[in-house]
Every structure is written in structure tokens, then in C-alpha cells.
């Protein structure tokens, strides 16, 4: 989720209240930028209409790349670069390549997925963190509304009113 510098935050103290609040916000056509919760809230992704993550596709592709390149590398090493006679087996001994190929496909798939996750969610080493609310990892369920774009109601006072109406706490405007 991209960072924003011009936003309103408000929090709930309960995941059920949060879900009710999000529903009424969406009914009033307020676009929600992001929701931060201390734990995974069931059904939240459906409620916010999140697109399905593309991480599995990255995993598949990087796994295939890892598997094929490992297989080719071993073939090159054992047939061209440094052929060794091991127990009288042929140089191209496919069964013995399989365990290494399997392990490296898994490893490279995992690396690819972690890298993709870091990049797409803008976290990890070197990224700048914005802390919206310090207690979001503790007991607060935070709603962030972006004021700069993708918001049909571009009036912060009006949004503030709506937030108050639905019982959100700690409404803060940051510009």
C-alpha cells in the first residue's frame, strides 16, 4: 500500500465495531485507503474488495526459474565443466539431480515471494516507515482515509462528521 501524507485516521477498539464502521463508511461512499489491525480480521479483505494477491504467481514463476536453472547448472557442471565418475553412474545422472533441483526450486520460490512481498507492500530494508498510530500493533483497529486522491468526498470536515457518526475514536487529520 502506497504511503500518503495527507490523510485522516480514526480507530475502533473492537474488530466487530470496525467491520460495522467500514460497512457504513462504504455506504456513504467514503473510499478507505487502508485498514491496520493488530491481528488478521476474518472477512475484512472481502469487505474492502481487495484484489487477490499476485504473490502466488510470483512464487510459481520464480520456482520454475529456480528449478530449471538448477537442473541446467548441474547438467553443465557434471557433463561439461567437471565430469566425475561417481560409483560408475553416467555423467548425466538425472535421479541424483532431482533432490537438489527440488530444494533449490523451493528456496528460490521463497526468495522470490519474499522480495515481491517487500517491494509491493513497501516494507523491508531501506524503506521509509510511516507510523499512523503507535498502538495499531497493540489494541487499535485503524482506518486510514486518503485525502489526496481516489476520494469522492473531498471535504475533510464532512468525512470527520461521518466518522464521528459511526462511532470512530481518535479522529486525526494530518496534512
Amino acid at each position: 500500500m502506497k504511503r500518503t501524507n495527507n490523510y485522516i485516521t480514526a480507530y475502533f477498539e473492537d474488530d466487530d465495531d470496525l467491520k460495522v464502521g467500514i460497512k457504513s463508511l462504504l455506504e456513504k461512499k467514503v473510499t478507505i485507503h487502508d485498514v491496520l489491525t493488530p491481528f488478521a480480521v476474518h472477512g475484512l479483505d472481502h469487505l474492502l474488495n481487495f484484489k487477490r494477491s499476485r504473490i502466488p504467481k510470483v512464487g510459481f514463476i520464480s520456482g520454475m526459474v529456480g528449478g530449471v536453472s538448477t537442473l541446467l547448472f548441474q547438467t553443465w557442471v557434471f557433463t561439461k565443466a567437471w565430469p566425475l565418475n561417481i560409483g560408475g553412474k553416467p555423467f548425466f545422472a538425472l535421479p541424483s539431480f532431482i533432490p537438489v533441483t527440488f530444494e533449490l526450486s523451493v528456496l528460490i520460490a521463497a526468495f522470490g515471494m519474499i522480495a515481491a512481498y517487500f517491494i509491493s507492500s513497501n516494507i523491508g530494508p531501506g524503506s521509509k516507515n510511516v507510523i499512523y498510530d503507535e498502538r495499531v500493533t497493540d489494541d487499535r483497529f485503524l482506518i486510514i482515509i486518503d485525502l489526496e486522491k481516489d476520494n469522492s468526498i473531498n471535504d475533510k470536515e464532512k468525512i470527520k462528521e461521518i466518522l464521528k457518526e459511526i462511532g470512530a475514536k481518535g479522529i486525526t487529520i494530518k496534512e
Partner: protein
Amino acid sequence: MNEKFKFEKSQKITFILLIVVGLLSLTAGILIYKDHPEKIWSNILLNNYYFLAIALCGIFFVAVHKIADSGWQASLIRIPESFASYIPIAAILMFLIYFGMHDIYHWTHTESLDHILQGKTAYLNMPFFFIRMFIYFALWILVSYGLRRLSIKSDFENDNKHFNKSRTYAALFVVLFAITSSTMSWDWLLSIDAHWYSTMFGWYIFSGALVTSIAAITLIILYLRKKGYMQYITESHLHDLGKYLFGFSIMWAYLWFVQFLFIWYANIQEETVYFVQRLEHFPILFYANVIINLVLPFFVLMSRGSKMKTSILATIAAIILIGHWIDLYLVIMPGSVGNSASVGFLEIGLSIGYAGLFLYVIFNSLTKASLVPVNHPFLEESLHYET
């Protein structure tokens, strides 16, 4: 929430027709292969084992989920539970093997045993073989019927005491099956190639049986759903069954490959002979086995969408059922029938007959109780389950 399954007349007739097909091909087989009784007995052994393994792993499915306190499966647990009613029939069919022992197992020719097989007579001898068989079936039937009885009992008394008691049975079954799943595969399958041995064999056969059983459970559930029953089984439950199919297919392939790799690597004649025979005389089935049971489920079931889609899941489950039949065929036939073994009308017809019998027994026992375990403590969780 009480849902009763009705065994329709048309279904009964279909299954009986399947059994008739099986009996006809068996009779034709007996007439045609008069000089090759080993062909007929091996086919009977193959199907005995295949469907017994489905039934046993169904009970294993129930037992494992019960002791793990898993919730998602509560609403579909009556299907694998009903597999218990096939085990006594499998016992009768298995004891028929007594008449074909000499045709399948060459260690029974006690008068002409070589040095190696003489050393194995302490374990591989006829009386002990049948004593073991009797013990397996007695214990399996005792525990699996106990599990099923307690589960049905709890429908009528809203009390968790039956559930708690059945957990003891479940734990017993898991321990029992850990031992017997290995020993039964040694007794009935590994001892066909009595000179050969493999330390991975019990695991390998068990993992194959587990996939087969989950494929069978999935197919029966999908069929019942299509018939209008079990509408509370959602995409999420199918997703989980698909994950099992996917995961255990890989586990099977892992164990299959480990067995192959060890033997290929060590290159000891007594061990390699098993794979040499299968690779030389059954190359198509040998490679088809890996493609059907690993490559196909791996790529088809990888995405989340295909696990949830009824048509894809049903197709792949059916293919896996056939694939593991081929796997078992490759374990049994080259050893007992020899290089001339082939898949013909007898193999296919007899399997169809067994499938008819299995389905008849399962559907008949599904009518005995509600399809929903109404007082199952995890039922509510299962109905609201979401992956």
C-alpha cells in the same frame, strides 16, 4: 439440520449392474485364463487391497482429525465414517486369498525354498500370515465400528461424552494403523517379490492409499452435492480437500522417488531387479504412474481457483483414483503374473465390479444415519468455515 440420505432405486440398480459386470468378467477370466490362475488371484488381491485401503484411510482421516481437534471437517465426517462398513466385507474377500496363496506368493512353496527365503520362514509362513490377517481385521473392525457407533449415538443425545470417548478410539486407531499399515503392505504386497526388500515400502503404499481415499471422499461428496444433499459444503471445504489431494500427491511422489533413488544409487542387484523388471517390461505404465499421480495433480491443483471449482476437482480426483490403481498394479502384477501381465477386460471389469460393491455398501450405510452429525461439537465451526 438433520439430513437423511435416500438410496434411490436407480442408484441401486446401477451399482448392482456394476457388480454384475465384475462377476461376468471374473467368470470369463476364469474360463479364458484356465492355465493362469495367478492372473485371476492377482486381480482379486489388487482390488481387495485397493478398496480396503480406501476404507481404512477413510477411518484414518476421521481419527486424525478427531485427535487433532480440527473443526472444518465436522460437517462432512459422515462420509469417511461410513467407510467402516466396507471393512468386514473386505475381510471376507481378503480371506478368499487363502485359495490362491500358491498362485500369488512363491514363498508358500515350502518344498522348494532357496536359502534366502528359508531364512524368512519365521515371518513368512501360512499359519502366521493368516493369524496376522485375522488380528488386523479384528482390530480394525472393532475400532472403526466403535468410532462410527459413538458418532451416530451422539445424534440422539446432546452430550459430548460420546465425542470424548470416541477420541480414545481415534487415538487407538492412529497407533494401530501406524503399525498395521506397514505390516499389511509387507504381508500382502511386498511378500509377492519375496527376495526383494525396501525400507520405504510401507510408507510408500500408505501415502498412495491416503491420496486414493481422499480422492474417493471428495468424489462422493461432490456427487452427493450434485444430487442436492450436503449444500452446506462450501467452496472452502472443497478447497481443503483439494489441498489434501495436492499435498498428499506430492508426499506420495516424494516417497516413491526416495525408494527409487536409494535403490538406483546403491545399485545392489537384489534390489534393482524390482525396478529393472518394471522399467523394461512396463515402461508406459511406469512413466504414466508418475505423470498421472504427480505432474497432473501438481500443476492442475496448484491454483486456488481450480481446487474450488467442482468440475476440475472431480476430474482430477477421478484421474488420481485411476492413477493409484496403476501404481498398485505395478506393485503386484510384475511380481505375481510376470512380464506377460497386461491390462485387459479382466483387470478393468473386475475393478468396476469392486467399485460397484464398494459404492453399494457405502451408500447403504449412509442411509443409516443423518448426513450431518447434528451434535458434533465442531459442527457450527465447520458450517461457517472459510479458508
